[in-house]
């Protein structure tokens, strides 16, 4: 029997040598005269062990990692003889880091061949859509609403309500748009699911289409993700061939077509109205709301626009029922969240779990602290617009409301760990600078405020009238927070103010006689 070896094609695995490993396996197998079949999968998300390779055995898939090209010969030996190896991790499904998770969205990621529609179906794919086709729009809306699913892109708006608004809108055309402009540092879940289980995204979007009566959909993927673009395009082709896109989906009367569009390096296009402008071929300038995209979206038509993870959560909800999903979580944050652990972290990767786990558990226990071995000092949650949390807030449970109560946000679920060498003045300055570079320019608080923010923080760093300038930054942040049109200008104050509040010592004024006299 041919040995089946699984090697991820995920960008993270490729970036640390997965392609070279495939070549090495092919060479070794040829030399040894043992036939092998290499299946390129997504990643299981244990990124500190990437490239992690697996071999099929009678007891399940046995994993090895992190494997380098030089290890391949000996790993192959171990695989062939079922013998011991220093990199052998045992049965993949039994690895504690993986076993502790609740994988609803990422259940198939890293397991199946993302290019194979058959593999997707064999692992429960399209079960949700088949049920949806038998339910009808109203029942699907009831299920999605009852699941408690909130948009996973950051804003956390209830998905059921959004879909219902579009379903009730009257128009000659409606659109489904998937926001795959995952620009936040520390986030990669969208990329992973598009590369590792692209049919799941297609199934979620198709379900949305039949629910609201849309016939055309777009996936807007950022250009920084060429591997995801390739994976989605391949999956769309395969879904069309298999009758899951195009006319008469799954033998029904519904028709739905899907197209990938590539961004061009503009962070602000992750904001939904900018994204729509960009899709229409214009500068990605934010639209004032209302009207909401649900009423007046792409090309002026009613549009469901959701994040990749929101669409990816849908098939489970339809296949297993709303309750099965809603039973996970805490408070008004239902279901699971794929949490991304990144930056200076020992065990970085993707950890899908029910809401409610604390930040400290995620960083210290699951993430294993820093890879530099130095103490964790600051953790930025929710991307460049997310707050920096100190250790004293590590008891905060992962929950939209709990984070908001502490002036933070969950955003897209990215966690970036910094050790004690971090200079928080620099991070605060970077947040303002990023906003200045990426601002679409439509509203003044964001466009001008961020530039003045950079200048003022620079003055603080240079020790110029520190007390006054700190007050000025805080005032500026308030203007940006309440005066900006979208989250870019509106949320940039989060990293800045949290740095000022929790890491005040970094901004401590240089004592002068004048200040001492005050």
């Amino acid at each position, binding site marked *: 029997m041919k040995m089946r070896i699984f090697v991820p094609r995920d960008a993270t695995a490729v*970036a640390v040598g997965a392609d*070279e490993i495939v070549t090495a396996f092919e060479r070794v197998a040829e030399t040894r005269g043992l036939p092998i079949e290499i299946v390129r999968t997504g990643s299981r998300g244990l990124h*500190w062990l*990437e490239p992690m390779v697996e071999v099929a055995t009678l007891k399940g898939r046995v994993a090895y990692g992190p494997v380098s090209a030089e290890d391949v010969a000996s790993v192959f030996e171990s695989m062939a003889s079922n013998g011991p190896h220093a990199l052998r991790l045992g049965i993949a499904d039994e690895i504690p880091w993986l076993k502790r998770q609740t994988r609803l969205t990422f259940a198939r990621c890293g397991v199946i061949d993302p290019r194979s529609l058959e593999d997707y179906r064999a692992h429960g794919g399209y079960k949700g859509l088949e049920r949806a086709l038998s339910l009808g729009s109203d029942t699907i809306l009831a299920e999605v609403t009852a699941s408690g699913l909130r948009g996973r892109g950051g804003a956390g708006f209830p998905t059921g309500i959004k879909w219902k608004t579009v379903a009730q809108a009257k128009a000659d055309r409606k659109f489904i748009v998937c926001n795959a402009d*995952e620009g936040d540092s520390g986030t990669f879940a969208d990329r992973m699911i598009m590369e590792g289980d692209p049919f799941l995204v297609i199934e979620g979007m198709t379900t949305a289409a039949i629910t609201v009566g849309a016939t055309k959909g777009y996936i807007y993927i950022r250009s920084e993700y060429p591997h995801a673009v390739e994976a989605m395009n391949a999956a769309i082709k395969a879904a069309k061939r298999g009758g899951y896109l195009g006319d008469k989906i799954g033998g029904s009367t519904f028709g739905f077509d899907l197209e990938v569009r590539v961004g061009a*390096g503009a962070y602000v296009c992750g904001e939904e109205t900018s994204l729509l402008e960009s*899709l229409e071929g214009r500068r990605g300038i934010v639209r004032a709301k209302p009207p909401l995209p649900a009423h007046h979206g792409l090309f002026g038509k009613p549009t469901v626009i959701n994040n990749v993870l929101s669409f990816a959560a849908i098939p489970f909800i339809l296949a297993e029922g709303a309750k099965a999903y809603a039973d996970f979580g805490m408070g008004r944050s239902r279901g699971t969240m794929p949490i991304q652990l990144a930056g200076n972290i020992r065990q970085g990767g993707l950890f899908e779990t029910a809401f409610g786990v604390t930040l400290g558990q995620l960083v210290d226990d699951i993430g294993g602290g820093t890879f530099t071995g130095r103490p964790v000092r600051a953790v930025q949650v929710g991307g460049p617009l997310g707050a920096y949390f100190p250790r004293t807030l590590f008891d905060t449970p992962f929950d939209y409301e709990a984070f908001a109560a502490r002036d933070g946000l969950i955003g897209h679920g990215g966690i970036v760990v910094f050790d004690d060498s971090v200079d928080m003045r620099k991070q605060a300055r*970077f947040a303002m600078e990023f906003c200045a570079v990426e601002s679409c320019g439509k509203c003044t608080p964001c466009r001008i405020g961020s530039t003045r923010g950079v200048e003022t923080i620079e003055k603080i760093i240079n020790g110029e009238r520190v007390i006054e300038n700190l007050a000025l930054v805080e005032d500026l942040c308030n203007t940006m927070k309440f005066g900006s049109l979208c989250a870019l200008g509106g949320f940039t104050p989060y990293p800045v103010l949290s740095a000022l509040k929790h890491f005040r010592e970094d901004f401590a004024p240089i004592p002068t006689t004048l200040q001492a006299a005050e």
Partner: protein
Amino acid sequence: MTAVYEPSCEPSYEPWDETRGAEIIAEHAGQEGATLVILHALQEAFGYVPEAAIPMVAQALNLSRAEVYGVFTFYHDFRHKPAGRHVLKLCRAEACQAAGGDALAARAEAMLGVSLGNTTADDRVTLEPIYCLGLCSTAPSAMLDGRLVGRLDEKRLDALVAEAQR
């Protein structure tokens, strides 16, 4: 761990040609909201978006030149002149900053003698910042001519820079 670096395939572009440009524009002009699609296609063919192509795009899409130019300049990806023979992108976002990316960026700048965003005098290497490759769990990250490299350290960076300079 050392990865086997395959020689990266040097990107090869066509010289600007109006007829070819018109062909590319016509191929995509029928798509709804085609501006970005066309600009991407032009850059993929020629390595940049030639100034002469802007009025052609405008005409094909029934837009003003200013509108097309406005789109072209809004997005960081589009180039108004060809890049160097190799493009080395270093991720400068927070996860990579947390993992020592600042020092590596400074090192790359010193080695190449250019600051981020510029091309070496011999036109061999364009060094650019990129804001997040989505490899934040194996930071710091880089991309050389489309090839991803994670867990960047001084040794790996030096190898990448040497490869780019070849």
